[in-house]
């Protein structure tokens, strides 16, 4: 590692070119390019078996790659370098810690591995385990154990944090809490690489997302832009049986359940025409809704019915 190399990549926390990983005859990752800027929250989305975890574990240094170039904070994570590991925090998908140590002891144990750890009190507050600090790990709930995982990942005050499915198995309230925590990390200037299969999570947290299907990135961008890509807002409503037919400028199509769908490039104008027509004809538009396209719509479109395979 040279200084010039480090400086060249200073604004990019992660840079990946043509990454491939083959297990026997199975191609888990088939040529991925990724760039994650410093201070960015980046989400990797994909169905089970899409290669998310394989990709992240290569970036973490837990797996070797078959080919391609990988640079994490200017280092090749495959080199297993101690100095590099001091700058990176890893929260794996399912890992335990010693069940018989307390929350505080466990965090301190991991803090001890790093030259400049975050203060214990800050970590307890960040993950909301202050009240459980003297509890044995064994006694924590699933959500609390996951928060402890995050505290351990942050113990060394890393520049970059990997979060592999941080909220899987959380109830909605715990998930909200975890999201606020990740937002807090962003405000501290940390770069976060997150994998998830919850679309709302990616929409809420990520500056940019990449959707991974069968080992390849099929879409990448800011969640809002991606959701809007090639798709429009939809207006949905029902008409009474005796309603007159719709005018030509409102080309609604029946959705099969008796309601009508109207694609709206310009939702304000469309809605205005529709309601004006309805008032004019004395019609009540039942169940009138306007739906904004979501990341989930795009995801389902991209993954299709056969895109996901069980792990």
């Amino acid at each position, binding site marked *: 590692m040279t200084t010039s190399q480090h400086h060249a990549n200073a604004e990019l926390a992660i840079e990946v070119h043509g990454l491939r990983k083959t297990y026997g005859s199975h191609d888990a990752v088939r040529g991925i390019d990724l760039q994650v800027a410093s201070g960015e929250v980046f989400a990797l989305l994909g169905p089970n078996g899409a290669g998310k975890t394989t990709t992240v574990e290569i970036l*973490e*240094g*837990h797996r070797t790659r078959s080919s391609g170039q990988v640079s994490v904070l200017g280092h090749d994570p495959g080199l297993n370098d*101690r*100095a590099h*590991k*001091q700058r*990176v925090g*890893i929260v*794996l998908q*399912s*890992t*335990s*810690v*010693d*069940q*018989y*140590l307390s929350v505080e*002891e466990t965090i301190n*144990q*991991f803090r*001890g*591995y*790093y030259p400049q750890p975050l203060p214990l009190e800050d970590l307890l507050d960040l993950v909301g385990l202050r009240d459980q600090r003297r509890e*044995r790990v064994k006694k924590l709930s699933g959500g609390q154990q996951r928060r402890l995982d995050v505290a*351990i990942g942050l113990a*060394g005050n890393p520049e970059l944090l990997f979060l592999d499915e941080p909220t899987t198995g959380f109830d909605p309230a715990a998930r909200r809490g975890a999201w606020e925590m990740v937002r807090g990390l962003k405000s501290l200037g940390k770069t976060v690489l997150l994998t998830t299969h919850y679309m709302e999570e990616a929409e809420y947290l990520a500056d940019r997302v990449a959707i991974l299907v069968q080992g390849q990135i099929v879409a990448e961008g800011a969640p809002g832009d991606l959701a809007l890509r090639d798709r429009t807002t939809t207006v949905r409503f029902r008409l009474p049986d005796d309603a007159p037919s719709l005018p030509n400028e409102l080309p609604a199509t029946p959705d099969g359940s008796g309601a009508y769908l109207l694609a709206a490039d310009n939702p304000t104008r469309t809605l205005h025409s529709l309601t004006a027509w309805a008032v004019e004809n004395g019609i009540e538009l039942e169940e009138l809704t306007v739906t904004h396209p979501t990341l989930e719509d795009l995801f389902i479109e991209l993954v299709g019915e056969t895109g996901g395979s069980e792990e």
Partner: protein
Amino acid sequence: MNSIMLALRQVRYENSAFWRNPAAAFFTIVFPLMFMVIFNLIFGSQEVTDESGNTYNLSTFYVPGIMVFAVVGATYTNVAMGISFARDGGLLKRMRGTPLPSWSYLAGKIVHSVLLTVLLVIIVAGAGWLAFDVDLPTTKLPSVLLTLAIAAATFCTLGLAVTSIIPNADAAPAIVNASILPLLFISDVFIPLDDAPVWLTTLADVFPVRHMALAMHSAFNPFEAGAGFEWAHLLVMAAWLVAGALFTIRFFRWEPRR
């Protein structure tokens, strides 16, 4: 902080966790002591005959025998179980993602096992001396300590080595116990093998447990003069130590196999 300090800090955490885990503390510490009391109550007054035809009281047989059992439990069983469970829960993998050198983590577990060994040997020797009137081999003390040191190193290494053939935590107790309990029974640990068929003792001689037991018995045997060094037995244990170390280096896994 340097790697040795990190390893020593690891020992402290291992120790706190060990004493709070009732199952670990019971099987490692209480079990051998319970065996010592039971065997002494049942057979303590009977006699054992050594190779030269001298007879002595079975209590003198049981103190070194139970020491072997305790050392094997605190090292081989303890290390193999501890590492298998840590690996299964993903703890080894998590450690690999931190700047802690991998060996420091394993060293923490091993040093802790050795400390447990020292504690157990002192308790067993003390109890034998106080409660069962066994003479401790003060003149052969260097040989006892050397035997214990080589044995602890060997069985810790074999405990590490066996984790390579343990696929996951569910299989750990079965593989660890199945590999060690039969050996303990055919290795002069609980029962003197005076009347055993030759093929059985020949089989037992292949493995390190009987060599540790014979070296310990020889040190405690009041009729055996000299310093008590049993070089042949120590050499067999050392050979297993080297084999176990090579096997570990080649096959050790940081993640479970499903």
